[in-house]
């Protein structure tokens, strides 16, 4: 049994708990909409913009911060 690397909740065999896993899935699927909306939008720039928006959900922001910290940005 593993703990979610973001919040420490039990996450079964996965790296992320169900909430942060869903947040990551949503973040990835919204990238498609953003890519069509904004030409040549790189993933890094996309998550930076999403993270700055007030409307972005808490778990999504936590996932973004985790990705950014891994990338060293």
């Amino acid at each position, binding site marked *: 049994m593993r703990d979610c690397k973001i919040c420490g909740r039990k996450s079964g065999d996965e790296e992320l708990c169900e*909430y942060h896993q869903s947040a990551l899935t949503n973040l990835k699927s919204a990238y498609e909409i953003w890519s069509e909306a*904004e030409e040549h939008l790189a993933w890094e720039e996309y998550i930076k913009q999403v993270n700055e928006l007030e409307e*972005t*959900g808490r778990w999504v922001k936590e996932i973004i911060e985790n990705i950014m910290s891994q990338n060293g940005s």
Partner: protein
Amino acid sequence: MIITEKPTAAKRIAAALDAAKSPEEIKKGKIAYYECRRGDDELVVVYALGHLFELQQVEKGWTYPRLESKWVPKYEVDKKATNIKPIINLIQKLSKDIDEFIIATDYDIEGSLIGYLTLKLACKADPMKAHRMLFSSLTDADLEQAYSSKGGLDFPVIEAGHVRHEVDWLYGINMTRALTLSIKKVAGWFKVVSTGRVQGPTLSFVAERERLINLFVPTPFWTIHTIGNHKGNEMDLEYFKKQLSSRQDANRIVDELIGQDATVDSLNQRTVTQQPHPPFNLSSLQAEAYKHFGFKPSRTLAIAQSLYLDALISYPRTNSEMLPPTLDIKGILTGLGGMKDYAQMAKSILRGNLVPVQGKKTDPAHPSIHPTGEKPTKQLSPSDKKVYDLIVRRFLSLFGEPMIKNHLRADITCGIHKLYTRGLQIVKRGWSEFYGPYFKAEEKTLPNIKQGETIQLVSVDFENKYTQGPPRFNPASLLKLLEKENLGTKATRSSIVDSVKSRGYTQGDKFELSTLGFAVFETLAQYIPDILSPRMTRQLEIEMDNIQEGTEKRENVIKVAKTRLLSYLEEFKNKEDQIGETLVNGLQRYWKDTEELGPCPKCDDGILRVVRSPKSGKRFVGCSNYKEGKCDQTFPLPQRGTISPMEGMCPYCDHRMIKVVSGRRSWTTCINWSRCPGRQEDLKALDERRSKKKVDETGGQES
């Protein structure tokens, strides 16, 4: 003996039924009863204080399962209910010389049960021989009519009340104990964590909404803003597509429109007739009072109840949106005509046809909420006045003529692009004149343009926006959802909405789920999902309705509820350790989120926490090293409102920032606010405001 529900009701009922309209008030210490005479009848009017009796477990021990209960005087269950004992004693004593008992409590499930229990347990009387007065307002006319047409007790309603109390008691105490004891077992702490039959599903609605908010990813869209010029007059034009999904499209459209000439294609007018809103039932009154005054539903109910006890409005706990044909509308309007604020409106209505608009919802016991036409005998408080005015104006508006509005629209083309502008003209205000401040529609005139004319597009630009996540609940929208899902009753819903907040499961005016709320939800969802499901509790509501209608037996419903509960508790017991661990983790996160304010600036190794003084009960910030005598750092805190720590530090003094939410107001400050150099101006202004208020209140006598 006439048994009423509250002291105010007793006084009013005694005055209404006494032939001379002046009953004798007999005082016995802090309580009283009334004696009056009506024809040959000598009447003794006594009062309860809501429920005088409560359910208590039969077996001993703060544990679970506990399935058997009995009715006992309330002061045996609630040690604070010391005022109940003399009332029960007085009723018992007076009952000895009574030959007929009449229940005159509120005409609803709770009222019927209060009357029945008082009769059976305090008066020791035979309910089969007792009578029941049924009324929807406390006016003399309604009460006299209710007295002369009194019938037998409404036993199916009493049975339904019994079941509601028993089932809520069973689920409330057993589930709450199960949760609380699981924490005690794992961590040794005694922290009461509650849930209940309706509270569980309510928490799950809030948690599900919070999940959607937490998972929300906004996506961009663009809107086009155009200003047209027609013969020197500028006008705002809207692009036919409200949202564009790409920046490229938005850029292209701006380029294609800017500086171009557009042509007025067509002018359309649509006349709409709007009928008045239906009469108020409790939930629509609560929604409207929240919308206009920001009153939470429980506050509106309390105000409406007090207006009812003053005989100013009809009984507020009603589902009905209808006024019965027997209602003396002319009498009510004449009464309102005697009040300065409503005189003109009432007189103008009285000259017309007195047929009100009706809604669809019905209630077997009471009509929709309406004023009685009685003049207030005392000055109403500002809040009472607001709700009373809303009720009166809604009632008056029911007799108004339909409102007639013209929706105007001009369609404009520019090459392949379509634009439009809209206007709204109110031709006839109709009923909205009576509803006054509670109806708002902004009129907008359409520019003076004709078909075929040219409009020059002088300014075209776009705005980049983002989609919004689902909104959080507010007290009114959560109450509406409970009503839609048929959870709870019109009388209990507002207190259920309040309880989710008062238990610490949500924070702020909007129902933002707290970490504690999330922990309880997560635990129940993982281990006993049924307790969160509206399905189970909705089924029970249906069964209770069936008891009230006489098609189901109380014993059967209780038996099924107990069997179901036992299976949940068994499951709970088997997983008690896991459940306790999940809750303890959640509680630790909750305390960290709500009480910890980071490292102590004085001693460095202590943690600042929100604590309460055991002596004064006041809260302040203290260091965790205080108990060991190592650090005495403290900061004062505002005493009102909810405080939540924020991430950032104060730009002026580098102390932790906090958010304070009090009622609908919220502000941010730092924990060092009383000494922070950046906040002295604000403090000075606050002191001045307070002094001014004090002078205003004392009429300047102190200065």
